[in-house]
């Protein structure tokens, strides 16, 4: 997984499959980076996600709550068709914001894309 920081935004890009096993690893990595940083918001860049099931939904909701608890927000970017379908089934589409790409997500969260 690739983690970057842009001002107050933590940008995490999980790679490969997000199932129960992988979700636990991604969750630990994202939370530890988030806690060590002074970030408020989280972007989950889904560009390199090749598979996801409901364990991924659980992981996303968990990070959404994490960001919210500190007054921040979570945005998803670069979702594939398959991930979008799961997202719609789960009802997440109503509560979690998404962006076409990570630049758009940064702008949505009030960050600076030149950082």
């Amino acid at each position, binding site marked *: 997984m690739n983690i970057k920081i842009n001002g107050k935004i933590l940008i995490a890009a999980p790679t490969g*499959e997000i*199932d*129960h*096993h992988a*979700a*636990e690893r991604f*969750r630990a990595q994202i939370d530890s980076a988030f806690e060590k940083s002074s970030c408020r918001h989280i972007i989950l860049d889904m560009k390199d996600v090749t*598979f*996801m*099931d*409901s*364990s991924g*939904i*659980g*992981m996303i*909701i*968990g990070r959404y709550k994490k960001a919210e608890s500190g007054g921040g927000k979570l945005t998803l970017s670069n979702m594939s068709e*398959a991930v979008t379908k*799961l997202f719609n*089934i*789960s*009802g997440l589409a109503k509560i979690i914001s998404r962006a076409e790409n990570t630049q758009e997500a940064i702008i949505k969260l009030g960050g600076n894309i030149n950082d």
Partner: protein
Amino acid sequence: MIKLEIEALPENVAMARVVASSFITKFDPTVEQLTEFKTAVSEAVTNAIIHGYSDKRSGEFVTLTLSAKGREITAKIIDNGVGIEDVEAAKEPLFTTKPEMERSGLGFTVMESFMSKVEINSKKGEGTTITLVKELGEQQ
């Protein structure tokens, strides 16, 4: 028919997906059908491991069988774990007995929306069998 015994460890779910994917690939599914089948199998095998066998218990096994009748593909996922107390409740979206593990309670919802038919047979203390049927329809 293919019958696979999978030790009930979280890292083995990926292998179950690989086998289910290659089985259905022989029938020339669309990319979407392949993803849906693979995802539903992933849900059921994950449930068997984390709920049926209460997570990370080596020495316990989940059975995955794959069969086809024409272009109707069936996957059965069998565990001899704790069983489901109330099947109707379990099927409800957002129902989970493990909220502390960041489960969202959407596994059955995903299986039902991705498959043509989902059957749950479960007995408390004896185990659970999930039957997933995917009707592929006319070849594209």
